[in-house]
């Protein structure tokens, strides 16, 4: 099955160097490929692991640099996540890529798209270090080329460059950590690395933990390694952004689970610091992500920052899983891991939907500036509804899927009160507070996004003339929207499956206790319970009640259409509320964080009473300014210092050799 899936991708790669038909070939086969992937994933989840090794290998007697593919439950779950998103995205792409026709090579796009899918699938199914590293880097490269696809744009090129450098840095760290593990296991095969952590020296093992955290953290976008993410994700074509934000950054979570729980293992309370570290980093990540999302003007950047926030949320759950596992609370560890995986899955769906929606807006208006939108819900009715479902999911409105995973994460954090360690408790409480704050800020952020983009009147010509996007794009979004709702409602069933994934890592299966028919319960007896199905049922029953009451009581009355209250002056787009204005109160609340810069300039014209006033605000990218730029500056400065040795004088050159020789001779005489 895997091979079949691989062939799907490869055949597309081979076929699509032709013109217009290549859209159909490329994305058709991508869709077929994803479908195959889903089938494989489901099969593995129900039947059991798959493994095969490819005949390609080079053996140097000591160790084999071969390739093998392994699909166990965890891989299958991520395969499912990837392919479930890839399928609708591929459908969406049929319509979306038309705008590139004639401007940029579509064949190239199709090729990269398929390779990107393939590499992501390979990352989660790779069975040994070399195969993994190659797939991992291939994934980075493909996404890089997709980010810089519109290569005439220097801004995109530099965004891509930053991305590639950061991801390469991450790969280097990952590579060294995996080599440390491989050295202990004396094999490059993942299957041989199981639980090698217990044989490793404490320092080496801790080093490996840290390296993996930093390496995968770079890909996942933890603060302060996230800087590439808000630049690269928006620069990519929207369907790619959806895949990048939706699933690519999740592959880091996959490897974190695999390396931490499978290879290195969490052995006991001495590993609790890891959990705490994760909670800390994750809380900061979530908060920083959402704070920047809140004030951003570029709506694709909003979504990118929101991805950072959600990765933070996922990692909060992951951190508590580590914590519980370290203290031997396997039930709770299982709960937290399930929450991790669920949020990974759900986030991929709604963030995918949102990015596709953003793509639709971009397609219709041609601008990425939120300040220039408005009133789209009347011009793009279907998109506005579908997008709204994504928004409801991301702000965790019950019973949508985002709520379910967030609820589980809250529960797993709350249940940590059973631990008796003040430091742990305090950090968990902090994480709780941050999570709650993050949730509320995210709601604000998306009110702003949706309200400013879809509601009210258009703020520019582009928005005023926007048209609904092609059917295939709508279909792709619709699939995801339906999935967002369905996965929320059917979460009890999904949890059964996810539990089988996490059982080997957490050491216990809790599905029986976690779900009670359609009701979710916490594994600790009667701590709490929640049922998305019942909530929606209750809402559905309440709705006609309210409706009937409202319409019947006091007689049936018609709804009239009138102007907005305008205080007597006709409204135009200049006195509408703007996104910047909307975020202003919160910007003031968090001004210590944003360090906003403002500039006011007054231009005097010929008329002393008519002046032109410009007011500019900008939010500096603190981490860029205070962390990365100095590093680059120092590196370049050092390099220039070293560069002095190349003086151009042959005598100096000879002197170098002379001094070296004399020194060596004196030392080694």
């Amino acid at each position, binding site marked *: 099955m895997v091979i079949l899936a691989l062939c799907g991708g490869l055949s597309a790669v081979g076929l699509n160097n032709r013109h217009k038909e290549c859209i159909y070939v490329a994305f058709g086969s991508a869709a077929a490929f994803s479908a195959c992937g889903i089938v494989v994933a489901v099969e593995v989840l129900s039947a059991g692991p798959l493994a095969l090794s490819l005949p390609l290998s080079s053996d140097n007697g000591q160790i084999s640099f071969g390739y093998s593919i392994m699909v166990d439950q965890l891989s299958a779950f991520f395969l499912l996540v990837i392919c479930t998103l890839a399928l609708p995205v591929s459908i969406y792409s049929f319509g979306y890529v038309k705008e590139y026709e004639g401007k940029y090579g579509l064949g190239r796009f199709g090729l990269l798209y398929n390779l990107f899918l393939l590499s992501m699938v390979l990352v989660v199914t790779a069975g040994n270090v070399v195969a993994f590293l190659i797939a991992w880097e291939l994934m980075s490269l493909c996404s890089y080329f997709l980010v810089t696809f519109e290569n005439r744009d220097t801004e995109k090129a530099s965004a891509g460059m930053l991305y590639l450098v950061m991801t390469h840095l991450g790969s280097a760290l990952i590579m060294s950590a995996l080599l440390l593990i491989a050295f202990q296991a004396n094999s490059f095969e993942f299957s041989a690395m199981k639980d090698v952590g217990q044989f490793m020296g404490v320092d080496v093992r801790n080093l490996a933990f840290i390296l993996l955290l930093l390496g995968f953290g770079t890909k996942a976008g933890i603060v302060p390694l996230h800087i590439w993410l808000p630049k690269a994700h928006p620069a990519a074509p929207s369907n790619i952004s959806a895949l990048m934000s939706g699933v690519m950054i999740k592959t880091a979570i996959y490897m974190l689970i695999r390396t931490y729980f499978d290879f290195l293992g969490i052995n006991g309370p001495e590993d609790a610091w890891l959990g705490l570290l994760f909670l800390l980093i994750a809380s900061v990540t979530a908060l920083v992500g959402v704070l920047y999302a809140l004030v951003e003007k570029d709506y694709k950047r909003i979504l990118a920052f929101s991805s950072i926030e959600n990765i933070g949320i996922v990692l909060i759950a992951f951190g508590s899983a580590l914590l519980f596992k370290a203290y031997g609370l396997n039930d709770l560890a299982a709960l937290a891991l399930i929450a991790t995986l669920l949020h990974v899955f759900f986030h991929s769906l709604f963030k995918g939907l949102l990015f596709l929606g953003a793509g639709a807006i971009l397609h219709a208006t041609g601008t990425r500036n939120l300040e220039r939108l408005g009133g789209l819900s009347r011009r793009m009715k279907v998109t506005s509804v579908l997008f709204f479902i994504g928004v409801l999911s991301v*702000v965790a409105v019950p019973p949508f899927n985002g709520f379910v995973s967030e*609820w589980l994460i809250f529960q797993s954090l*709350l249940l940590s009160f059973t631990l008796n360690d003040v430091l742990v408790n305090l950090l968990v409480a902090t994480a709780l507070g941050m999570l709650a704050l993050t949730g509320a800020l995210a*709601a604000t952020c998306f009110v702003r996004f949706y*309200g400013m983009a879809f509601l009210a009147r258009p703020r520019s010509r582009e928005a005023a003339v926007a048209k609904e996007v092609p059917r295939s794009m709508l279909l792709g979004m619709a699939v995801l929207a339906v999935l967002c709702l369905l996965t929320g409602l059917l979460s009890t069933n999904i949890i059964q499956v996810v539990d089988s994934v996490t059982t080997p890592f957490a050491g216990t299966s809790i599905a029986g206790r976690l779900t009670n028919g359609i009701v979710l319960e916490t594994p600790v007896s009667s701590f709490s319970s*929640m049922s998305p199905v019942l*909530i929606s049922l209750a809402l559905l029953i309440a709705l006609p009640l309210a409706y009937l009451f409202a319409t019947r009581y006091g007689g049936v*009355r018609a709804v009239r259409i009138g102007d907005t209250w305008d205080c007597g002056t006709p409204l135009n787009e200049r006195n509408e509320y703007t996104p910047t204005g909307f*975020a202003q109160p919160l910007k003031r609340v968090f001004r210590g964080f944003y360090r906003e810069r403002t500039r006011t300039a007054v231009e005097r014209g010929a008329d002393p009473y008519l002046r032109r006033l410009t007011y500019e605000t900008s939010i500096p990218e603190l981490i860029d300014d205070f962390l990365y730029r100095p590093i680059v500056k120092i590196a370049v400065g050092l390099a220039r210092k070293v560069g002095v040795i190349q003086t151009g004088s042959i005598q100096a050159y000879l002197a170098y050799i002379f001094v070296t020789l004399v020194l060596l001779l004196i030392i080694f005489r």
Partner: protein
Amino acid sequence: MNDLLLALIQAALILGLAPLVTGIIRKVKALLQSRRGPPVLQPYYDLRKLFRKSSVISSDASWITSVTPFVCMIAMMVAALLVPVFITASFGSLGDLIVVVYLFATARFFMALAALDAGSTFGGMGSSREMMISAIIEPAILLSIFSAALIAGTTDLAGISQVLVLGGTDLLRPTLFLAFAAFFIATLAENARIPFDNPATHLELTMIHEAMLLEYSGKQLALMEMASMTKLMLCITIAWSAFFPFGMATELSPLPVAVGLIAFLVKLLLFALAIALIESSMAKMRLFRLPNLLTGSFILAFLAVMSFYIL
């Protein structure tokens, strides 16, 4: 089934009494200000009047405007199912207090969007300010209820009140007081009361909640008002049942239930009195001084959770 029935009865109670509470507050406030004030039942009359009127919708508005009143209303209705009033039982398998808070958030979310929908500057202003307040107040609410939940060992509201009632004064820890204080401030903010917002104002530049409702009229306005009143009622009920549920019935027999009902009414009055007192003695704060108070509430709630672990 019993639970469901009890939950329905209590929900009906909450919905039914909600305008009354608002009426009481207004009346007390008037008396404190040496006015006669409208009758206690005035909110009911207002609602009846509004339901008889037709609505006007802005030509710029989208479907969000039409949907929002219903969403707000049903969110409150479902939330009411989860809150115990006089007996420590609710429809627990539907959800817990997190669900309640998120239902509030849902209502607020829709309201804020609806405020933006018409493209009026006032709506945008109200929406923006409301979201600022809620961004800080929602975590405060969550954390303060969490501290009660941690003491009780459950996040189910009925469960919390049950444990607290049965545990008696032993469980009256500083945590609860801190949490209650935080929750009280949050309630004021959440329900647009002074010093956060003036529910009676129509002075354009200071209003928050009212600015969001500016475009609503007739039946829709009635629903929104109804939802707001219910929310206030819910908040009061939660405050009592999560922090000081004493007097609530723990079993379904006439005497405890009667005691529970009376205790509930007394607490309701107390709360209304407190709000009225505050509203008469304080002025509305400047908008940009609000965050100080809001973060104060957040910190209090945070301390409550911390103190659970430390003390």
